[in-house]
């Protein structure tokens, strides 16, 4: 199996260090479970037109220690629903990392990313070379390699399929 190719525009850059992802939908909306309703609320305080502007495959970019605090799952659920395919950040908070990788959301820890791209640049993640390519400026920036377990989880699409495959492989080994 191979990792899903990631190729899209930078739909937003969160410049705040230690960013609390609950802000994406707003803390008061964090308990909403209806995905349609959540998606409408996502990014409202950043760009009210975000839902219209974002396209399937786009990515969002974050600063250092992205996901700090007490991250909940709805904000990324909403972004995925709108078409966001990955988060590329300077670095991630471990709780957020674990939670979202287990949901099958590609997270790419890429020091320097916030100054490497501008909003709406076209970028591409080259999993094999370990590089983020900015197709708008034609420059590349290396990202941190995934552990084999994290890679497997992204390849299979998340925690449950990952565990099913791992258990099946163990049984036949």
């Amino acid at each position: 199996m191979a990792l899903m190719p990631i190729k899209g525009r930078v739909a937003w850059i969160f410049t705040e260090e230690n960013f609390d992802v609950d802000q994406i939908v707003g803390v008061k909306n964090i308990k909403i479970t209806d995905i349609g309703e959540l998606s409408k609320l996502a990014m409202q305080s950043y760009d009210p037109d975000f839902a219209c502007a974002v396209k399937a495959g786009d990515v969002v970019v974050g600063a250092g220690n992205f996901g700090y605090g007490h991250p909940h799952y709805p904000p990324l659920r909403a972004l995925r629903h709108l078409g966001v395919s990955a988060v590329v950040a300077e670095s991630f908070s471990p709780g957020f990392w674990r939670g979202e990788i287990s949901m099958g959301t590609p997270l790419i820890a890429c020091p320097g990313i916030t100054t490497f791209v501008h909003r709406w640049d076209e970028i591409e993640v080259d999993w094999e070379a370990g590089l983020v390519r900015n197709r708008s400026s034609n420059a590349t920036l290396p990202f941190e390699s995934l552990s084999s377990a994290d890679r497997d989880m992204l390849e299979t699409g998340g925690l449950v399929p990952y565990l099913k495959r791992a258990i099946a492989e163990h049984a036949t080994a």
Partner: protein
Amino acid sequence: MGYTLAEKVLARVSGRPGVRAGDEVMAKPDFVVVYDFPGYTDVIFRQMKQDFGIEKIAEPERYAIFIDHMVPVATPAEELLHIQTREWCRDNDVALYERRGIGHQVSAELGYATPGGFVVHFDGHISQLGAFGTLAIGLRRNILEAFVRERVSLKVPETTRINLTGKLRPGVMARDVFHHIVRVLGPSACRFQVMEVGGPALEGISIEGRQVICGLAMFTGAITAVINPDELTLAYSMPRARAAIEPVYSDADATYAAVHTIDLTDLEPIIVIPPNPANTRNLTDHTGLEVQSGYLGSCASGRLEDLRIAAQILKGRQVASGFSLHVIPTSQEIMAQAAAEGLITTLVQAGAFTSSPSCDYCFGRIATMSAGQRAVSTGTLNVAGRMGSPDSEIYLCNAAVVAASAIEGRIADPRKYL
């Protein structure tokens, strides 16, 4: 080159002679402890059967489940969750500890915090078992792995060592020490690492205080925290230990990602202002601010030294009119001892509301705040909406500050009452 405590624990539980930070291992937890909570245990129990065909868990003695959230229940749906948990534990021969207190504390009392042991949970505050030299990691939803197979995949973490020196002044508590660490080192200082706390100042910090410091480790970015066992913690943990595990210690020549020394001599009580657990400030910069409620409890307080100092401050005094003070001992064992010492009587006579242990005050399920209200709290977190309305505010502080603020109805310095 020597090994860290974390490397030694993970070498043992992954069956290797030695592992180093960065190695990827399959590690067998000595204990898997969780509390029942919607979206976690109910989903795990269902997935075990539906997705993995597991009818009965293997090695049930490695598992423990706590009912500490939604205690007491307020809706039939909450009770149904507990009913399903009770049934699952019965059917699987898994130990269930219901209403004994907050699981992170009770698991230490019951001997799951074995020095040198490896424990997993979904909740990151399990890191507080590190006070006893246990490597305890919160895996979030990945905890499912620990329910469907013997081992969990883990990258051996690096360790940052923090040496604490000096002696705490009166009115300054372990809670202040932790938030001071965040202030000095920043909220990402130990990202993906183990925060190892040591140094001569620990001699003056109780077991309870060490649990507090380790339990909040996530706010430095750490995945857990440890303190090398000493006479004090061994005397507590070894007689209770549920597994025969040899304590381990970081070697003097272990490799650390960083080593910091933080002197506590001049540390003043702190306050962590909303809406972020990294907003450490000196208490004295915020005294006088009006507050309507106070919470003394959670897995990061509510222990005997917290109840004792609160009782000392409130003895013969009264909680301000219109102020809601909730004092919730962290476990039944602590509550019984506090009652025996007369602390509960003192607190109640001063106007505090107390109840049996529950996690529910910490996340606003009960004692819920309205928009515009403000609390002083020893709970774990101060993000918006944590204790009720997203338009209420939480100021985190030590137990003495909560007690002093309750008297004045304003954020108050406890030192004048000591």
